[in-house]
């Protein structure tokens, strides 16, 4: 059979030329935009390096073992180290997580796993859950000083816990709860429905399915949320300024006040002339935050590897 040759050589050359020019144009556009992205990234990194570098260089002189292991002396001089503030920070991290992790994870499990699962009269419960979800979203974006004021009003004055570890822990728990709830929700949502179905089809109850299959699969994501909260607690100042007081001594019990590392930095900067000590404290804070972010990075890498394995 004789097929007419519709792609004459001329037409073909033209098409080729046109697509070659087009390709060059597109490549140039790509080069330009990637160049701009790079520039943007470079500027961001530079700014970060300058800030961190400045803190490190000015603070470096005051950091040594003694600085880390002696308590601050108090007063206007800003003499002494930071040991008690580190310990108070750790106390607070522990207390806040002990309150907020079970509550937050429980709330997230409830919001995700039981959402819309109510068979009869489900409409009311479903809209209630929607309201709660909206509330969690909103709380996560509220400035922390509001949590501080709330904590001051409720825990410090109304409940008369005073400026204390307890007040600060409760206010701090309110602060990080939305973060824990949201990251746990996201982690639960990444667990495939097929795993839940597989478990239920084997005669597992809903709770067995959650505790033995869904939560274990979501653990890396949940830990990420908890680490984010730890970072938030370590760097928080406003909430603890109005709930923890400012004593530089080690708290003796739940009802004594204290100061965290960031709060100490705040006091050093505002009330003393110990500029280098403040910078040293800042450097310690930055190092802790970097460490926490490294851990989060490690976990989420593990998480995505696990997800890939499952697909």
């Amino acid at each position: 059979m004789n097929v007419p040759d519709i792609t004459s050589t001329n037409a073909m050359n033209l098409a080729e030329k046109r697509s070659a020019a087009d390709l060059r144009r597109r490549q140039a556009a790509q080069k330009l935009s990637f160049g701009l992205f790079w520039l943007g990234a470079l500027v961001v990194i530079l700014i970060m390096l300058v800030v961190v570098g400045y803190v490190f260089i000015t603070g470096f002189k005051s950091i040594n073992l003694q600085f880390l292991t002696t308590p601050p002396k108090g007063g206007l001089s800003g003499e002494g180290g930071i040991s008690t503030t580190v310990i108070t920070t750790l106390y607070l991290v522990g207390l806040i997580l002990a309150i907020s992790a079970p509550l937050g994870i429980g709330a997230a499990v409830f919001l995700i796993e039981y959402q819309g699962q109510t068979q009869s009269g489900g409409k009311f419960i479903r809209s209630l859950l929607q309201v709660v979800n909206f509330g969690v979203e909103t709380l996560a974006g509220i400035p922390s000083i509001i949590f501080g004021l709330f904590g001051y009003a409720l825990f410090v004055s109304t409940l008369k816990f005073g400026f204390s570890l307890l007040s600060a822990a409760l206010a701090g728990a309110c602060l990080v709860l939305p973060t824990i709830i949201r990251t746990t929700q996201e982690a639960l949502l990444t667990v495939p429905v097929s795993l839940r179905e597989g478990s239920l089809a084997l005669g597992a109850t809903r709770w067995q399915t959650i505790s033995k299959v869904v939560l274990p699969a979501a653990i890396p994501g949940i830990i990420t949320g908890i680490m984010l909260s730890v970072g938030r607690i370590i760097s928080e100042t406003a909430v603890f300024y109005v709930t923890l007081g400012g004593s530089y001594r080690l708290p003796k019990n739940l009802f004594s006040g204290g100061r965290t590392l960031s709060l100490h930095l705040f006091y050093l900067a505002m009330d003393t002339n110990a500029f280098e000590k403040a910078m040293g404290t800042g450097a310690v804070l930055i190092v802790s935050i970097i460490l926490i972010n490294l851990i989060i990075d490690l976990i989420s890498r593990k998480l995505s590897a696990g997800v890939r394995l499952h697909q």
Partner: protein
Amino acid sequence: MNAIKLETHSYSLYYGKFRALEDISIEIPEKQVTAIIGPSGCGKSTFLRTFNRMNDLIPGVRTEGQALLDGEDIFSMDVVALRQRVGMVFQKPNPFPKSIYDNVAYGPRVNGIREKNVLDEIVETSLRGAALWNEVKDNLGKSGLALSGGQQQRLCIARALAVKPSVILMDEPAASLDPIATQRIEELIRQLVEHYTIVIVTHNMQQAGRVSDYTAFFFTDESRTGRLVEFNLTRKIFTNPQDKRTEDYITGRFG
């Protein structure tokens, strides 16, 4: 003919206002393989999931009519007890991100079995039953996810067997597998039917012809409501269909 294991009478199912299944009456015999065939979207999976009440998980699902297991009303049973009697294998292999051993021991464990030697025994028999034992016996601690697709599906079958059900529902169990893995699953189904009642959804008619004793043909029209057109011995459905639509479907006129 064998005793009746599963049956529905004038059974209809609604997803909210949408009627997915209408007026289905069927009697599925014990220790036989019954295939459910029909074009995609005609309600095969929905119908299969009736027998272990997986549709309960979907909000807004409503049913009419009866569904019985061994003559007992499925909807008034305790759902956990029902799912111990009626196991399920899904379209895509869905092993838990746990070891092979823990995957198989999962069902017995959630049903309260703790003794190590009992669990060991169940794991071995189940893996043997699913024709997987020889391939994994030295690696029971390995993750179930590290197996090939066909092995994963047999692991899921072993996991279902471990609960000691009398019925196994399979929803296109070979749809995601290569021809060789598919053939192994089909051979396995023929072995399992000695002891279990098997209901398998497939849109592969050759597969239905190879593995099943009985075939139910489901069909739907513009209403998208699924109906049972014909149910008979597979041999008869394929050689002498009573309904024009069945004939058109198996001769490939609907694709």
